[in-house]
């Protein structure tokens, strides 16, 4: 077996079960004596509960139990926030599993009902009588911060969850001395993540033993166990959390939710397995949303296009409560990325996290970095327009030159490696940028305008050193762990703490082991997502599973290799220092014909008939890998659009995405990640928005109104890459899960504005629906 398996687009190991309908997702599970939970959610955005009467519901056919807040007192601690942002005056509102007295968003949990089947549960749910006294509601994060706005939490003035600042350089001087200043007000609208599998939990508590097994659609089963332990009062030793097949997450299965805790509570009360599966309507109301920023941004520059400072104020909507990772998203993952791939001499950003009567907001693919990239790349285009320069030239003026091992930016981050100019040049050449501009210069054809939109980006991924996690208030570690176990036959089991949910790491992890040790990837089985079986892991988010978990795995494989080399030396009666290893073979230097394969070693290590002195039996190793730094993938995206002025219809005609995630373990999987990421970013630019009405009702409450990208709305994505290894990473990889999303929203946005420049349009609120575009054209006409 050749090491060339690294970098090979082999078929995915997980697919046979997925394409035959034999994979098991949480809702596919059934247990003996299992009952079904249905959740009663608030129809009001903000209201006081004046009374709840569950008696009719409790008496209905098939109903096993009905619980409200009062039942959970003492048994269920409030839902925790796990990113306690320091130096930000953070105020965490109490988030009860079942609402106490006041509901604060449409979808806030009011009661849970358990019945013998879900139809009966839904019937009885209608019999719970709740009287509400409506209270005024606020949805806009900037409005929520104003005096006189409705107050969500008595103890938190002006709804301010936190005020966080990043500053570097002399920002005042930058603006005082600026030769040109451009600014914009940008709305990063609320998005609904829409993992195709809605959230689900199956809790099975055994009263006799006090043990709980929870099957849960989650990106991080170990974090679920950790938080569940605190909230439900069970020792971690008594809790097993299993993430079975997970149907996508995109950040929305990072949080641990009230409904998860409540489902467990029901099972503990009843001593029966309780299953709860979200309907899509519930998912829209109660599973975390993404983005929701109001950004005021200004950029100072010289007349030659050199940027000198970036100053911004962001109001970030948190929704009604702080979800698990929420405070870190618009701050650490956003504000620290404001330099992007550019040399930025001075920066100042104030981020106000505000409570609003919306669904809690948390990570959504890219999580903070798309919002930062958008600001910066929007400013680049505005600056180019102001200076009548080509957007490419302004960017080239400011790009950080190629670096191989560390580059510190004004926000204090130290990027690992990058060659941003090369990425940009490769995209421009591939697209025939000059040719496209020449076509554009000929003017509109039949009222259809051509536009080009660029975005360069850098993202911080592979979160992150645990010491940094502590410093930034993340209430956990950010290392990953892996165990590799060879069986006597040479087959391998990998146990990994990371918990992929559709990305294909069962395959890429097998490829890592295969490449390091020369076994057939088909002989490597990867176990993940079961806290009883796998070592601790901190979850899949921030494009960290391969970057951090993969590093843990590679280092573990190398430990195995080192041990195997000792055993091989013993078997070949040679000194260890005289041994060589290549392509799965251990041999005495210069004598590759006389070799031992890892399979030979695995047999000997396991039978242990003839081991070197002092070497333990078995061929197994484990590693806890704590990365020395983040990784910093980067790329350049170019969107080409046609805008029909008569209707405002935008057609994306080409999309070129260059992403540099370092060496690609499986380029087919990398390309797939880019496709999906790009399309989610396009979705934000053109179609997607969670819309609330003035009373706080979510009016895009179903897939009838929330427009997700579909096959017939998209062109093929032209995927390019460069390869810049991370110098600090064992195998150089940087992570790719979010890459596509980070550049694509602003690339498409820039393209549409570029198309409409001849008409005088400079800004349109996203998503760029036909009406919004058409209205902007009408307004520009005057």
């Amino acid at each position, binding site marked *: 077996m050749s090491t060339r398996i690294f970098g090979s687009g082999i078929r995915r190991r997980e697919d046979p079960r997925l394409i035959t309908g034999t994979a098991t997702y949480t809702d596919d599970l059934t247990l003996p004596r299992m009952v079904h939970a249905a959740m009663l959610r608030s129809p009001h955005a903000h209201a006081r509960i004046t009374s709840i009467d569950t008696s009719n519901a409790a008496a209905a056919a098939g109903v096993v139990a009905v619980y409200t807040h009062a039942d959970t007192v003492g048994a269920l601690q409030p839902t925790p926030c796990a990113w306690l942002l320091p130096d930000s005056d953070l105020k965490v509102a109490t988030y009860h599993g079942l609402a106490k007295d006041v509901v604060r968003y449409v979808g806030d949990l009011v009661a849970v009902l358990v019945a013998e089947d879900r*139809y009966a549960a839904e*019937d009885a749910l209608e019999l719970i009588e709740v009287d509400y006294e409506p209270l005024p509601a606020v949805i806009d994060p900037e409005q929520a911060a104003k005096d006189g706005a409705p107050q969500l939490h008595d103890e938190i003035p002006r709804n301010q969850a936190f005020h966080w600042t990043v500053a570097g350089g002399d920002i005042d001087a930058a603006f005082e001395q600026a030769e040109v200043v451009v600014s914009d007000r940008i709305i990063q609208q609320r998005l609904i993540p829409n993992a195709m599998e809605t959230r689900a939990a199956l809790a099975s508590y055994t009263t006799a033993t006090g043990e709980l097994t929870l099957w849960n659609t989650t990106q991080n089963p170990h974090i679920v166990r950790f938080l569940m332990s605190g909230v439900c009062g069970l020792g971690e030793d008594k809790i097993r959390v299993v993430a079975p097949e997970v149907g996508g997450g995109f950040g929305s299965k990072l949080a641990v939710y009230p409904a998860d805790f409540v489902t467990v509570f029901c099972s503990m009360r009843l001593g029966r397995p309780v299953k709860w599966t979200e*309907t899509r309507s519930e998912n829209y109301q109660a599973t975390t949303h993404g983005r929701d920023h109001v950004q005021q941004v200004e950029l100072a520059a010289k007349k030659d296009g050199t940027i000198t400072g970036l100053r911004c104020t962001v109001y970030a909507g948190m929704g009604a409560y702080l979800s698990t990772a929420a405070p870190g998203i618009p701050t650490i993952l956003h504000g620290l990325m404001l330099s992007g791939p550019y040399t930025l001499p001075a920066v100042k950003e104030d981020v106000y996290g505000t409570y609003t009567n919306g669904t809690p907001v948390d990570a959504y693919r890219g999580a903070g970095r798309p919002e930062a990239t958008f600001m910066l790349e929007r400013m680049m285009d505005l600056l180019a327009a102001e200076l009548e320069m080509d957007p490419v030239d302004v960017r080239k003026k400011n790009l950080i030159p190629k670096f191989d091992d560390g580059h510190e930016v004004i926000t204090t981050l130290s990027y690992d490696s990058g060659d941003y100019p090369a990425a940009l040049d490769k995209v421009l050449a591939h697209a025939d940028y000059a040719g496209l501009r020449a076509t554009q210069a000929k003017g509109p054809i039949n009222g259809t305008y051509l536009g080009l939109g660029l975005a360069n980006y850098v993202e911080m991924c592979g979160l992150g050193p645990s010491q940094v996690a502590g410093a930034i208030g993340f209430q956990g570690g950010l290392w990953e762990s892996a165990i590799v176990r060879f069986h006597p036959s040479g087959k391998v089991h990998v146990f990994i703490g990371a918990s992929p949910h559709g990305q294909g790491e069962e395959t890429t992890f097998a490829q890592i082991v295969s490449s390091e040790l020369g076994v057939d990837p088909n002989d490597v089985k990867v176990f993940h997502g079961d806290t009883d079986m796998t070592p601790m892991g901190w979850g899949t988010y921030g494009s960290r599973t391969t970057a951090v978990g993969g590093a843990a795995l590679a280092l573990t494989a190398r430990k195995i290799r080192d041990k195997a080399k000792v055993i091989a030396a013993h078997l070949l009666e040679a000194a260890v220092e005289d041994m060589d290893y290549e392509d799965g073979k251990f041999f005495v230097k210069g004598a590759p014909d006389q070799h031992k394969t890892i399979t030979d070693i695995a047999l000997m290590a396991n039978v242990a008939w003839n081991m070197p002195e002092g070497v333990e039996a078995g061929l197994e190793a484990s590693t806890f890998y704590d990365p020395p730094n983040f990784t910093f993938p980067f790329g350049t995206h170019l969107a080409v659009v046609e805008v029909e002025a008569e209707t405002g219809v935008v057609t994306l005609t080409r999309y070129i995405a260059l992403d540099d995630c370092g060496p690609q373990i499986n380029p087919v999987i990398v390309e797939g990640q880019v496709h999906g990421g790009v399309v989610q970013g396009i979705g934000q630019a053109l179609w997607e928005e969670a819309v609330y009405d003035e009373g706080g009702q979510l009016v*895009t409450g179903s897939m009838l109104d929330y*427009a997700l990208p*579909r096959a017939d709305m998209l062109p093929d994505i032209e995927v390019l890459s460069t390869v810049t290894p991370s110098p600090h990473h064992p195998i150089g990889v940087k992570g790719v899960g979010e890459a596509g999303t980070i550049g694509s929203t602003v690339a498409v946005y820039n393209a549409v504005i570029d198309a409409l420049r001849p008409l005088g349009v400079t800004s349109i609120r996203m998503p760029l*629906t*036909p*009406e919004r575009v*058409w209205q902007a054209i009408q307004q520009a006409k005057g």
Partner: protein
Amino acid sequence: MYAPEFAYYRAGSLAEAGQLLQQHPGAKLLAGGHSLIPLLKLRLTTPPALIDIGRLDELKGISVTDGRVRIGALTTHAELAASSELAARCPALAEAAGLIGDPAVRNRGTIGGNVAHADPASDLPTVLRALDATIAVTVDGSERSIPAADFFEGMMETALGDHDIVTAIEVPAASAGQGQAYIKFSHPASRYAVVGAAASVTLTGGTISTAAVALGGLVPVATRADSVEQALTGQTPSVDTIAAAAAAVSADLGDDLIGDIYASAEYRRAMAPVCVKRALTAAVERAG
């Protein structure tokens, strides 16, 4: 989602369906179910009983007699879209049917269910209005015909009585020199029409002898664009005459246009002439 309880009766014949309707006040007819079942799942409707007419062969199929095309109420959108008879005789209907929902929806949704539901954003009512279709309705064993103009009364409201069953749709077959088209601007999520325009134009000796134009999505009930039709009749078709006629549509729209978060009434009003123009252009091209 989980529908509320209801009783279920499967009709073996049209007559039996009629009897069941009489016996079960408040019962709803179930054909393909693609309008009704989503409402049931959301519990937005709670009928005591459903009467399944989905297997009545007598309500299926497309036939042509005396210049009229008769389409059984249970004919699916997919069958409409694929029908060579329709493509030849009322092409706008086939074209519109092929734009409804998605393939799986078109395989189950029926023309009868569609017209009975009378959603203002639906495609078929617009075409049926333009083509002067009639809706055949049976009650107590006797069939009567209701012109589309009278059938669609309001948003999701029709002239159907409690015991009426839509049995067929009848459409005059296109004559020589007649061109038809249906154009819609779709909602990206629901795929419903934000604005839909159906046009049927007859060219006689190079001039437009008759023109029929109907609009959907804009107003609570599909409506004819009389001003456009008048502006076109007798004209020689050209880019300018079509554009001028299409512009006249504003006179047909009234004050109360539908508006929602995706497309305001203002935008729909502005798009109406654009959509009409495109439908007319295609229809004229096909007529020639």
